[in-house]
């Protein structure tokens, strides 16, 4: 499926972002990182369905117009409403979640990479959750290797870590009604892949970069 580049913000997206901001009371903090409109890959911890929209809503308007969330195809193509929200409203990059290990999944992983690289070639920014699935909020799961490959393919695009606090209290896994606890989105200094840095080490460093932003 071909998506138009997210150069302007869909009115429904603006509305949803406004609602998300109201419910989450999100307070954006930028630590050693300019909240500019440069092309970036934002990567954050994942505990709630609200994560992507709250992170998106806490970006400055000009950065928001560029940013596309990366989301799981199996979930977001299930109903017409989800398809509309993911496709038309948020211009999400929908990817196949790949079961790891098998021969087929290697090809699938490559296809996913190509999709994300294509989105970056469109000058879009990406919002990714490298844990792959929502956690309980206690600790971060191991990062999947996607951001390592992105960092390899596009070393010119900044990788910005973000920590989303309290989203698991607002809308945890398995709940449909939100509780309006105050949340925060903390963005940290951009990360770069060091020359010759092994995959494992980079992913651990990226995970630590997110974890470090957790307010004490």
């Amino acid at each position, binding site marked *: 499926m071909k998506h138009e580049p997210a150069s302007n913000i869909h009115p429904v997206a603006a509305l949803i972002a406004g609602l998300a901001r109201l419910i989450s*009371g999100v*307070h954006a903090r930028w630590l050693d990182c300019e909240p500019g409109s440069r092309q970036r890959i934002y990567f954050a911890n994942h505990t709630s369905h609200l994560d992507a929209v709250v992170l998106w809503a806490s970006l400055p308007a000009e950065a928001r117009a560029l940013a596309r969330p990366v989301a799981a195809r199996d979930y977001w193509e299930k109903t017409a409403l989800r398809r509309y929200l993911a496709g038309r409203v948020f211009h999400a990059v929908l990817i196949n979640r790949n079961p790891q290990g098998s021969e087929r999944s290697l090809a699938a992983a490559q296809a996913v990479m190509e999709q994300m690289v294509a989105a970056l070639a469109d000058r879009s920014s990406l919002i990714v959750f490298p844990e792959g699935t929502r956690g*309980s909020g206690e600790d971060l799961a191991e990062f999947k290797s996607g951001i390592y490959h992105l960092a390899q393919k596009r070393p010119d695009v900044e990788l910005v870590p973000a920590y989303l606090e*309290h989203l*698991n*209290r607002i809308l*945890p896994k398995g*709940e449909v*009604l*939100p*509780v*309006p*606890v*105050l949340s925060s989105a903390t963005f940290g200094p951009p990360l770069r892949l060091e020359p010759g840095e092994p995959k494992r080490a980079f992913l651990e460093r990226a995970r630590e970069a997110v974890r470090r932003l957790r307010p004490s």
Partner: protein
Amino acid sequence: MTLRMDPQLMWLFEGVLAILALSSLIGLVLKLRVRSDTGRATVANLNARIRAWWVMSAVFALTVASGGLGSLVLFGLISLLALREYITLTPTRRGDHRTLFWSFFVFTPLQYVLLGMRWYGMFTILIPVYAFLFVPTRIALAGDTEHFLERAAKTHWGLMVCVYCVSHAPALLILEIPDYEGRNANLLMFLIVVDQLSDVFQYVWGKLLGRHKIAPSVSPNKTVEGFVGGVLTATLIGTGLWWATPFSPHEAAGMSLAITLMGFFGGLVMSAIKRDRGVKDFGTVIEGHGGILDRIDSVCFAAPVFFHLTRYFFSP
């Protein structure tokens, strides 16, 4: 929306306006005269507070003047926002989610709806009885028993302080006081003016003369001089406002004293909670003041006591 043109209420508004104008003038003079860096920071914070006071006073005056419904909506929102700040700072668990949803979106609005219906009997027991029994039941049904008693107590305490106590301020509007019909908004104005002036003058006297700390381990900014100066000044002003109330000057003095003392206790207790949680403020929404709960901590304690004193002595 019909704006109430009660002449006494207008005088109260004009008085507030005069105080704000005077404060802004003092703030400007201080800004021009201050030299040291720490002094500059204090004055900048003071001016931020004064600016926020203009906004808060305007919002409050407009809603009070718009009659009962406006005040109910305003205090209902204040309760919601205060509860939100409180719960944010209170560690809750996954098993509390549904209980919290009920607290925010059922009990809080219902408390104010009951006021709107003037159903006083239910208004006084909804949270102390029904929410009190509901909260632990719902948590138990969720099945997580870790820190059970603490979680039930913390949630209920939040409802009591942020919703039950605060709702007693607009509850003044439904009191039936002989020969005082249609003027209850003045009582609400009296409570808020005396309570908030007490906070302001405790701050001012504390900054000017503060030496001896009252409870250094709880709140390093509260001093004996600030406390005495603030309570006396606000009580004096409250006494001077007796004409707007059903009270005689002596009674107005007693009521003002009760409001200021309870307000002080409220501030102290909220400071203890903030200390325990390791934060300075409950939030950041009001520039220079912190959160909503930082601004209304004194109202939480003063409102129910003032309400019941008035009800007991003046409403047969």
